[in-house]
Structure formats: structure tokens, C-alpha cells
């Protein structure tokens, strides 16, 4: 269960104070696939950063399974990101001089998994995201955008997180690959009861989620979605 309580994040830009996240509150049950839509600069990525403990709110709190992130020291926040969160960045943010399998192994290395175990799991995850096994050992900069996105998703799944935060996961992909990525995230939710929150411009993608939020001028509102849009969604 994720509870977002009166979350505010402000930035100072010269004389102006910008509030990309302005008093946002909502709750997400475990195993929910949700989306946040909104215009560019509406604060979607900022909200995602706050939920993933990449940033600290100006006020308000995010409570994950009863634990407040606002009161957590940096060391614990790092542990939270490592254990509970899987990020899929819009720009993939993979380490360019490492291979696909090495990138997927990184979070497991930080979690203290033995090399043989993390190598095996990394290969399984790359197969799960349907990356050609021949490309597992290939450097990131020699993979296509779609392939890199699959590696990024595999990396996000490495430590079996409770929450996956995906920022425009299909933004750099063609429609077919984008659909496949959505199917992949849905199946993860089904198989592992993972909560998935997707920030997207893609209305088609948003329509396939269980819950849909819209962020406008820092304010979050929930929009109705078609029931059972995605196979396996919780009742």
C-alpha cells in the first residue's frame, strides 16, 4: 500500500516559486497498474521522483507499507530504492560501457547477491523481456532504443521490487514495441503482484491501466478508466 499525503514540491526560479507538485494525495493498493497523464512540465516526473525517493518533498509525505519516507535518513532511502523500487527512466539511464547483462546485474550486486546467482537471474530477466540471448553480452551503446528499454525494464525488476515507477516507458519506442512493453508490465503485475505507476503521454497506454490520474498545474485528479482494460487486472 502506498499512501501519498498532501505532497508538495516547490522550486525557486529567480523571483518565482514553481510548484510542480501541489498538495497531491492518493492511495495505491498493492498490485495496481496506474498511470499519470499530463502535459509536458506538469510535474509528472517530479511526482515520480518523490515516490521513488530520488527527491525529498518540500512538505507532505509518502508512506509505503506504513513507513514514512519523509522521516527516513539518506542511508535508509538508498536501501528503500534498492529493495522496494524499480525505476524505468525515459532516457533508459543504463551504464553505457557495460553490457546488457552487467547492467541488469548492478542492482543485485548492490543488494549483495552472489555473482553466479545474479548472472543467472539477469539472463532470465533478459529472456523475460525478450532480448535476443546473443545480445545479452553486448554493450548498451550497440543496442537499439527498444532493446535498451527492455534492458532498463529487466534492471528495474532485478531485485523483485514492490513498486515499479516507469517514466514514459514507451516514449522512445514504436507502437508495436510499446505494446509489448505494456503487456510485459501487465504480466509482471499479474505474476508478482507488483504495483506499477506509469507516467505517460500515451493515452492508449493510460487506457490500459487500472487507475488513471491527471496532473495539471501540480494538482492531481483521478480520471475514470474502462473496466478490465488489461487482462488480469484486479477486480
Amino acid at each position, binding site marked *: 500500500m502506498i499512501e501519498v499525503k498532501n505532497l508538495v514540491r516547490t522550486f525557486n526560479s529567480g523571483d518565482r516559486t514553481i510548484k510542480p507538485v501541489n498538495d497531491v494525495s492518493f492511495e495505491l493498493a498493492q498490485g495496481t497498474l496506474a498511470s499519470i497523464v499530463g502535459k509536458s512540465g506538469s510535474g509528472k516526473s517530479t511526482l515520480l521522483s518523490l515516490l*521513488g525517493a*530520488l*527527491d525529498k518533498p518540500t512538505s507532505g509525505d509518502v508512506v509505503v507499507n506504513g513507513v514514512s519516507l519523509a522521516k527516513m535518513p*539518506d542511508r535508509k532511502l538508498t536501501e528503500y530504492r*534498492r529493495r522496494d523500487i524499480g*525505476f524505468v*527512466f525515459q532516457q533508459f539511464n543504463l551504464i553505457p560501457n*557495460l553490457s546488457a547483462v552487467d547492467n541488469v546485474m548492478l*542492482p543485485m550486486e*548492490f543488494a549483495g547477491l552472489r555473482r553466479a546467482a545474479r548472472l543467472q537471474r539477469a539472463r532470465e530477466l533478459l529472456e523475460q523481456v525478450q532480448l535476443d540471448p546473443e545480445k545479452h553480452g553486448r554493450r548498451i551503446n550497440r543496442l537499439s532504443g527498444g532493446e535498451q528499454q527492455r534492458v532498463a525494464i529487466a534492471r528495474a525488476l532485478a531485485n523483485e521490487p514492490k513498486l515499479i515507477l516507469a517514466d514514459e516507458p514507451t516514449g522512445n519506442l514504436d507502437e508495436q514495441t510499446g505494446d509489448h512493453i505494456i503487456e510485459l508490465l501487465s504480466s509482471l503485475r499479474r505474476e508478482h503482484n507488483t504495483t506499477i505507476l506509469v507516467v505517460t503521454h500515451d493515452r492508449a497506454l493510460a487506457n490500459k491501466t487500472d487507475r488513471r490520474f491527471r496532473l495539471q498545474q501540480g494538482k492531481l485528479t483521478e480520471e475514470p478508466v474502462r473496466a478490465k482494460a488489461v487482462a488480469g487486472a484486479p477486480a
Partner: protein
Amino acid sequence: MSVLARSVGNAFRNKVRTAAVVAVLAVAIGLALAMLVANQAVGAKVQELNASVGTVLTVNPAGGQGFEGGGEPLTANQAATAAAVPNVSAVVGTSSLRLRNATEAAAQTAAGGQGGPGGQGGPGGQGGPGGQAAATLTTSLTAAVDAGTLGNRNQASGTTGTTQPVRSLPITATGVGAEVDTAGKALNITEGTGLGDYSAESTNALLGTTLAAKNNLAIGSTFTINDQTYTVAGLFDAGTTFGNNAAYLTLPTAQALAGVPGELSSMIVTVDSLENVDTAKTALQAALGTDAADVTQGQNLETAVSSLGSVKNISFIAFIAALGTAGLIILLIMVMLVRERRREIGVLKAIGAPNRTIGLQFVLEALVLAALGSAAGAIIASFASGGIASALISTNTTSTTTAATTGRGAAMAGAAGGAGMPGGGAGFPGGQGGPFGGASQLLTSVTASASPGVIAGGIAAVFGVAIIGALVPALLTARIRPIEVLRGE
């Protein structure tokens, strides 16, 4: 992939830049190591000098007037008194003789040259303060230093048209109670054995290498002093031309030849440690009395050691400066690398990398660069350290060397002035090629060798600096929030 493998891979991300960084580091580290090696070599030399002769005091009869001689000779009783002084570990008596080639002496006598102007041991030459009048004896030996090498001053015809007889340097013979030279330094015997039997009946002698070569003598050869035959038991190398124009006999033999049994020209007193030298010197002077004996320390050695100490300090400062430069290079490189990879650090933090892992990754990367730079620097140091040490020593010991050379020049002039006037003091060490007189040779004999221990110590220091240089920027960056790095890109 482990953090080590990742760091090694990162170090070679940009091969051209890595090569350039390693080259610059190699020069700085090589210089640092060369300075450290020079520092250690000079330090070892200072220790060696202090250990060999730094604890030696010389006792001469009081009241000497240089070449005029003077003062009451020292005695065996005074030697016993000296031995009883606290912290004195050994007392060796010496008896100085002056040998003149019998043929030349006869020719000069026939020419009336005896007793001419310019007494033995002119000012600053053979005679030092308190020198006892050395007995002059005849020998079959010919001096190793030819008169012609002294500027031909004794060969030239005067304005009166009188032809001067051929003259050469006298040969210094010293009776010793142990195999040490007149400064207490152990003789460097290059061939044969020591004197062995120290009784009055001993006919063994040690000759300087050049003196033996001049007279075609080898181990077992014989020569005469006052018509008594002596056998060459060993050859020694004093390190100087004048030092090798000398012979050593046993003390009783020399005393018997001089006809002064029980009398000593000087005493070599060894103190048990360098720290006790000043105390022992004061106590020794008090025990012997200022009216009977002068207790001195080798001033040239102090100068030499002081000069080497300057080289040691300079090389240490240069080592620190070069090490600091290497550290600064690593720091700047790592600052550049960390700034270049801020996004990567942000990503690593976002996926759960603790700060220590990020710091370790950059430290290992810096250590890879430092290791490569150290390997190349060690090669540079192994070739350059000898030359750098020599350059430092020759630059910083000019005054000492000049002073030593001047001293030897005065000794030459004094010694060449003629052998006729009796009373030339011969007791002061350093007059004729003693170890203190050869200060320049002492200084330049420093050998800088790149020992594994010193190199390892230097590289450990470089690694220490590299760790700090890498940790500071990496941890400063790792402490900021991941979003600040990711958003900033």
C-alpha cells in the same frame, strides 16, 4: 561484474586520455620515487659516516705550533687515562714517522739542501695544531707523488742559477695499535691481510696502493726503513692520492724506529655512541688536562655530514612536492571524471548503490591509474635516481669540496716545501689525505639504488594520495540527491 572489474573497465573507457594521464603521473611519480631513493641513499650514507668515524675523537699533544711542532708527547699512561673516561669504548695510540727516500736524502745532503726554507708541513699542510715532531727516517721506498706533479716548483732553477736537487714528497708512516687510519676509520684493505702481530718484533707493514704500485711491491715483497727490512702484509686504499702515499706499521715498531718507546703522536679515541660524543669530549679534555692534550673532532666530517643533511632535506622536500603534484594530478583527473559521470553516479544511486560503493568504484579507478603511473614511474626512477642524487650532491657540496681541495692544496705546498726543517707536526688527521681531507670523495661516493622497500613505500604513499584524491570528489557527488544529478543533465 564486480566493482573492481567495473573500475578497471572505467579506467580504460577513453584509452587516449588514460595514456596521457598515466604519462603525466609517471613523470610525477618517477620524480617522487627518485627523490625518495636519493633521500634514503643520503640518509644511509650519513648513518654510515656517523657509524664509522662520527664517534671518533683525536687527542694531540697540547701546545703544538703547527710546523714548528711542540708540546709534550702523549704517553701510554695518558692512553690508559683516556680509556677510563666514561663512554670511551676504545683508545688507539699512533706514532708518526716521516720517511724519505735514502738516495734522494743523500743527494740533498750532498747539495746542502737540508734545512732549507719551508719546513716540513707548511701551514695548513702536514702540521696541525699540536702536532708532535715526527721522526724522519730513510727508506728504500720512493714516494708515490712525484715532485713534477706539484707544479715543478722544486725543480726550477732560481735566479741565482743554482740547480735545485730533485725532491719528492715524504712518505708518511704511522704506527698504529689497531687497523685504523689516523682518523680512526677502519682501513680499507684491498689485498693481503692486516698487520696481525702488534709486538715490537713485527716486521709487517701495510702500504697504500699507489705507493706499492710506484715501488713495484706486492704482498710478500720487502722494503727497508733505516736499513731494517719490512714485509708488505697488505695493501689499503684510503681513497685519495695522498692517503695512499703512506704506510702503516705496528705501534711498537714505529716507536722503536723513532727511538721513543712509550710515546704517542696522537690517540684515536672511539666513543660508544654519537649521542655521547660531546660529553665524552668534555670529560676526556678534563681528564687529560688542557695543558697536556687537545681533544678534537673531525670538522670536515661535520661539514660533510651537514652538507649531506642538506641534500637529504632537499630530496625529502622534493619528494613531498612531487608526491603532492602526483596527488594533485589524480585529484584533478578524478574531479574531471566525477563531473563527467555525474549522471552515472545519479543512476547508480537511483538503483540503490550506497555511497561507499560509488566511492570505492572511483577509488579503485584512481588506483588503477596510479598503479600504471607508478609502474612507469618506478622504471623512470630506477634510471633517474642515481643521476638526480649525484646532481643534488654536486650542487650542494660545492663549498665543502672547495674547502677540502684547498686544504689538500695547502698540504701539498707545505709538504713540498722541503724536508729539512725538523719539527713538522704530523699528527693532525686530514693533513695528508686522511678521510676528512677527502670530503668530496666521501660525498660523491653516495650510491642511490632503488631498493624494493623504498619503491614500495613511495608507491604506498602515491596510492594513499590517490585514494584521498578519488574519494573527495566521488563522495561529494554521491552525497547529493540522485534527482539533482539526473535533472541537471
